[in-house]
């Protein structure tokens, strides 16, 4: 059991370091509270955005927390892909430049997995290959446009 955990952990950690660097230009890593007995302790994330010093995870800004969380999600995706991903406004805390970075990453990963991303931000919508429009008709009934090429 410990073997299986450590194999997964090490692979996901490698992915996390790579993807966190790609998204934020900084250094990050997953840290086990108890390396000897990993299942006895928790796991924390150490992340240093570009040109900054290490701070406690709670002190990060909304945008920095989002990038760190997304790097973790994509690190898992790379190790154990799911058949589809449904992400609802994951870009709500991100500034324009970071929305573009995340959109480009999703575009890369969408070569091997299906992504449905709800978003209100232009850089994300423009990067997608297809756009599904949703509107509200009279009497409170939702309807969708067909898939349009972006």
């Amino acid at each position, binding site marked *: 059991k410990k073997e299986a955990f450590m194999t997964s952990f090490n692979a996901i950690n490698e992915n996390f370091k790579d993807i966190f660097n790609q998204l934020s230009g900084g250094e990050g890593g997953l840290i086990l509270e108890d390396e000897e007995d990993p299942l006895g302790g928790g796991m924390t994330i150490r992340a240093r955005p570009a040109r900054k010093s290490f701070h406690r995870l709670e002190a990060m800004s909304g945008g920095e927390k989002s990038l760190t969380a997304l790097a973790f*999600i994509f690190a898992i995706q790379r190790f154990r892909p799911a058949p*589809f991903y449904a992400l609802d406004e994951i870009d709500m805390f991100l500034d324009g430049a970071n929305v573009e970075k995340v959109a480009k990453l999703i575009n890369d990963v969408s070569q091997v997995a299906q992504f449905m991303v709800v978003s209100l931000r232009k850089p994300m919508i423009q990067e997608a*290959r297809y756009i599904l429009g949703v509107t509200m008709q009279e009497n409170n009934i939702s309807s969708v446009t067909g898939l349009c090429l972006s």
Partner: protein
Amino acid sequence: MHIKEIELRNFKSFGRKVSIPLENDFIAITGPNGSGKSNIIDALLFALCLSSSRVMRAERLPDLIYKGENGKNPDFAQVTVRFDNSCHTMPVEEDVVEISRKVKLTKDRYHSVYSFNGDTCSLSELHDILSRSGITPEGYNVVMQGDVTRIIEMNPTDRRKIIDEIA
């Protein structure tokens, strides 16, 4: 394996039968506030049994059935998800797999029915088939609105458990 189509009937704000065709690619879902975007994600969680009614912003399952202003409201809601299974990730021969869930109201009781390729099945059978193809309630492939930083704010033990599930 990917989702080819999602069909909603009387599910939340989707009062008419609506079929949503999908491709195996990067799809952006967009539209005004309150138009029904998050309801599509809720429909996936409902059909694939990935969460409780609380997460779908409903107190009880019947709150998921469309309710309009004018008079007669339907007594059932149904969501059907069609997967492209040509690579046979799901351990069945068919090239298209259809998973459906219906919640039906009779007087003031309700029950929900699951079906796999047209045959009724139990929740645990469905969980079993789905988890073998990497679709599980603990999986991080669905992120709800407002939830993106949850991984950062949870306690270290719960965070480690995410890896436990994968191992």
